[in-house]
């Protein structure tokens, strides 16, 4: 998707805006189409309530997708996000319930847990030159084991002490949603406007060439994993406060959902190309799809079938849009 963001196209600035518009057009169209279909199929889908519901549901997914976007851009992958979310949630729950720690320091501890997992992922894969796929697959098991060990597999009920985080709201939009939007914008700016972002894109494109340009790719990579760890911890805190309880199984399967959303947004699994904003739209598309299918009351297998087809279709459309953009550009 984000040829716009990362690989500034060849034309001069005057094409910039048209390009940015085109960038998100496909995603917005897909989104609009879904909303339309579900509005026709059900009575209450097209309503402010649905909008607010979705807005308040997605922040955790958005944060994780943001981290995953950065990870994919450096041509890595993080399969452990779901488990790490579970672990952070467990830390939060256990320290608040069993050790009566106050909310703020407890959130800090959860953040540290996420950071530690991220740094572990990054350091191990960088230090030993291992594929992140396998390191984070290991972490997937380790963090989930840790979550269960900490909580003794019992959901920790925290209660209203943690509630403020999720329930404060501005104009009906929850604090987490606003936070998620801010982080998406910040992420996109970091990616497109900073040295760090440029290094990420370069590393994802050709790590060896970056190394031979006198830039050590390792700290950049570790930092990306660490940032993702923190974003995942934040997501866990948000969901925990939404549910007012910490479940050691929280986050199961998040990794594939996040990857699906990010890829629907058009970020390349091969690295070097991606956009945080597009991933945000990817999350929205998945959320609307889920909400709509639930509103219709579709059978479970139908939901799965449709979800599978939408994932594949979205990527095919994205592919075509790209090809189209490219051809148009080359004809000018």
């Amino acid at each position, binding site marked *: 998707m984000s040829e716009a963001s990362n690989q500034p196209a060849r034309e001069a600035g005057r094409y910039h805006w048209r390009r940015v518009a085109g960038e998100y057009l496909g995603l917005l169209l897909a989104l609009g189409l879904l909303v339309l279909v579900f509005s026709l199929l059900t009575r*209450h889908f097209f309503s402010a*309530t649905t909008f607010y519901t979705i807005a308040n549901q997605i922040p955790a997914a958005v944060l994780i997708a943001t981290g995953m976007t950065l990870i994919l851009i450096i041509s890595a992958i993080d399969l452990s996000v779901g488990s790490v979310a579970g672990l952070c949630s467990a830390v939060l729950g256990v320290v608040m319930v069993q050790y009566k720690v106050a909310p703020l320091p407890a959130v800090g501890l959860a953040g540290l847990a996420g950071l530690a997992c991220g740094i572990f992922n990054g350091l191990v894969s960088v230090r030993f030159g291992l594929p992140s796929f396998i390191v984070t697959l290991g972490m997937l098991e380790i963090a989930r084991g840790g979550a269960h060990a900490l909580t003794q597999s019992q959901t920790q009920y925290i209660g209203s002490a943690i509630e403020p985080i999720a329930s404060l709201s501005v104009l009906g939009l929850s604090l987490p949603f606003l936070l998620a939007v801010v982080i998406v914008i910040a992420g996109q700016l970091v990616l497109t406007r900073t040295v760090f972002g440029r290094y990420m894109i370069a590393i994802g494109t050709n790590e060896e060439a970056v190394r031979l340009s006198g830039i050590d790719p390792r700290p950049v990579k570790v930092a990306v994993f660490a940032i993702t760890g923190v974003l995942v911890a934040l997501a866990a805190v948000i969901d925990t406060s939404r549910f007012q309880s910490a479940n050691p199984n929280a986050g199961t399967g998040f990794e594939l959902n996040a990857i699906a959303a990010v890829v629907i947004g058009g970020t390349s699994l091969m690295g070097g190309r991606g956009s945080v904003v597009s991933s945000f739209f990817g999350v929205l598309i998945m959320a609307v799809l889920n909400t709509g299918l*639930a509103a219709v009351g579709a059978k479970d297998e139908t939901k799965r079938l449709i979800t599978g087809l939408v994932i594949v279709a979205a990527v095919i459309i994205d592919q075509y849009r790209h090809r189209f953009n490219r051809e148009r550009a080359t004809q000018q």
Partner: protein
Amino acid sequence: APPNSSTSSPSSPPATGKPRVALVMKSLANEFFLTMETGAKKHQAAHASEYELLANGIKDEQDVARQIELVEQMIAQKVDAIVIAPTDSKSLVTVCKKAQDAGIVVVNIDNKLDAGVLADKKVKFPFVGPDNRKGARKVGDYVAQKLKAGDAVAILEGAPNAFNGVQRKSGFEDAMKAAGLKIVSSQSAYWETDKASQVVSALVTEHPEIKAILCANDSMALGADAALRAAGKQGQVLVAGFDNISAAQQLLQEGKLLATADQHGDQLAVFGIEYALEMLQKKTTPDDRETPVDLITKK
């Protein structure tokens, strides 16, 4: 085979004054909940003039967040009642309270919400459901009859934090303790056939003295049976399950399964829906209702 349930799927109903009841279940990948859904849809078909039904489940039982989102979506859909089989007894309380605060009738079925959390939130939902511990106790007692005191047994647990899994484990343990049987190992096989077969294979090698294996669901009993067959121990080690899925009925007849328990999932949802309708009409809250769990053995 169950009737084609899509005929009763209320995809685009005309706006009517009929109350809309949402049934929120756990994993629809689980036969038990499918039975539940089928029962509910049959009931709705028979009472089509009285209410509309919107049935939803989550992909897998671990996905608490998704179930919470489902409830939120039902609130957004402005349904009149929610009948819920919570996948986690603590995490779902908050959102159920939110539904109640929004004026929606909430009935709790299958898995009872945590009493401590309910007290903390100062809410109450009527509960309709079986006592898994009692059911497991019945199965355990039946197995114990076939053994003598001091015999070794093993338990295959469900997913470690699944409330009904924990309940069933406790029921098995109660029965074993009462009969003086020795539990040499109790491990989770995550409700899965494949994992159960792996664990049981290892167990019968390590503890050849095992006389019975108590499984927290029938899928795991199938795995246990396969492992015993492979180890040449079929018939020497008793296997018990839980849920009474259709495959289990045949295993029972072939004598490969000693006993299982039936919670009458089809009725469970129906009771819940009836409670919900009653509450909508009379604006009163009925008492909790325990549904039967029956011991099933070879006929």
